[in-house]
């Protein structure tokens, strides 16, 4: 089962490059141009990642994180979500770079292939940063019902986190 999914990515590359070659595209030139665009993108998200990593480490070092998690754990336990990923679940709607920093912290702390880490990965992928989309995409747009759409998206996101922990347990 898992080996099938390991095949997906190389197959996508082979198929795309072959198709591009048939279409007489300069594969090398295009690939280089695209890869180069990754650098400004990373430069633009680095400060956010740094700020959230610093915050996460401070919370751990001061013991504040344990207290917050302890406070939230009954709710999360009720929903079947491991309390270790609570921080990630809560920061994800606010900051994309912040949540990938949190994800990396969790992967390092609990081991990449642990249950907690897999839950974290799926929870990370299950939705986008709701408030970021609202702030950036809809910056100049005033629609009366947008707050409703935000609420719907958040509900859908929390439901999918519950689903993801369930899936990670059985798969």
């Amino acid at each position, binding site marked *: 089962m*898992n080996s099938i*999914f*390991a095949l*997906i*990515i190389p197959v996508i590359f082979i198929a*795309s*490059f072959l*198709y591009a070659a048939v*279409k007489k*595209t300069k594969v090398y030139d*295009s*690939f280089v141009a*695209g*890869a180069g*665009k990754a650098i400004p993108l*990373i430069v633009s*998200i*680095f400060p956010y*990642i*740094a700020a959230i*990593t*610093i*915050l996460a*480490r*401070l*919370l751990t*070092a*001061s*013991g504040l994180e344990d207290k917050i998690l302890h406070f939230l754990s009954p709710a999360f336990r009720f929903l079947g979500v491991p309390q270790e990923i609570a921080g990630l679940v809560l920061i994800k709607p606010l900051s994309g770079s912040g949540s*990938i920093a949190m*994800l*990396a912290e969790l992967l*390092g702390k609990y081991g*990449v*292939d642990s249950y907690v880490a*897999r839950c974290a*990965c*799926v*929870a990370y*992928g299950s*939705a*986008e940063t*709701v408030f970021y*989309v609202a702030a*950036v*995409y809809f910056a100049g747009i005033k*629609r009366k*019902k947008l707050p409703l*759409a*935000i609420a719907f*998206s958040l*509900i*859908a*996101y929390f*439901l*999918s986190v519950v*689903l*993801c922990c369930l*899936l*990670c347990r059985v798969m």
Partner: protein
Amino acid sequence: MNAIFLSLFLGATAILLFVNPPLFLPTVLEAAGDSATLCVALLASYAVWMGLMEVWKACGITRGIAKLLRPVCKRLFRTDDEQTLQAVSANLSCNFLGLGGAATPYGIEGARLLDQSPQAEYASCMFFALNATSLQLLPTSVVGLRASLGSGAPADIILPTMLCTAFSTVVACFFTWLFLSPKKSCAAGACSGRKKQAVFSNKSAAGTR
């Protein structure tokens, strides 16, 4: 975000001040250093996928995907404007690949154009719901991160991620359609298509309980 950052930062630092003040600077510096390492890992996966995206763009695969998405977008957003549909489908296809950063410029353009479409209120909310829950078929940066940290099977989260992201998107779209859709202009074809979606989302909601 500013308020959250400030209050958590001050709270944690104040506690540290009482418990173990010399720990502050090394903690902060180590965190900043580690975030640089994380960025290098991300840069690796972005470079690979954005390279592939560029090849797709050059040989017309991107345009093909956008064309495939167009009928769906037409129904979802109830607009016929070519330029709007193009921006919206480009945005959605970037999201499919898990390239949030690349989806942003198209998303901004799409949101602006949809704001001028015939059913702007509904279309804007639907576009928001789709983007906020982002249907992500290939979680490229997570797979890359797992691989760089030495995972035994970095790709084994693809299937659960697909299911969860599809679930969150369907739920958000269903709510948006249910509560915000202007009912009287609902074309027969569009309605039957959405009913199917509704049945599906009810099923998956029942499954979680």
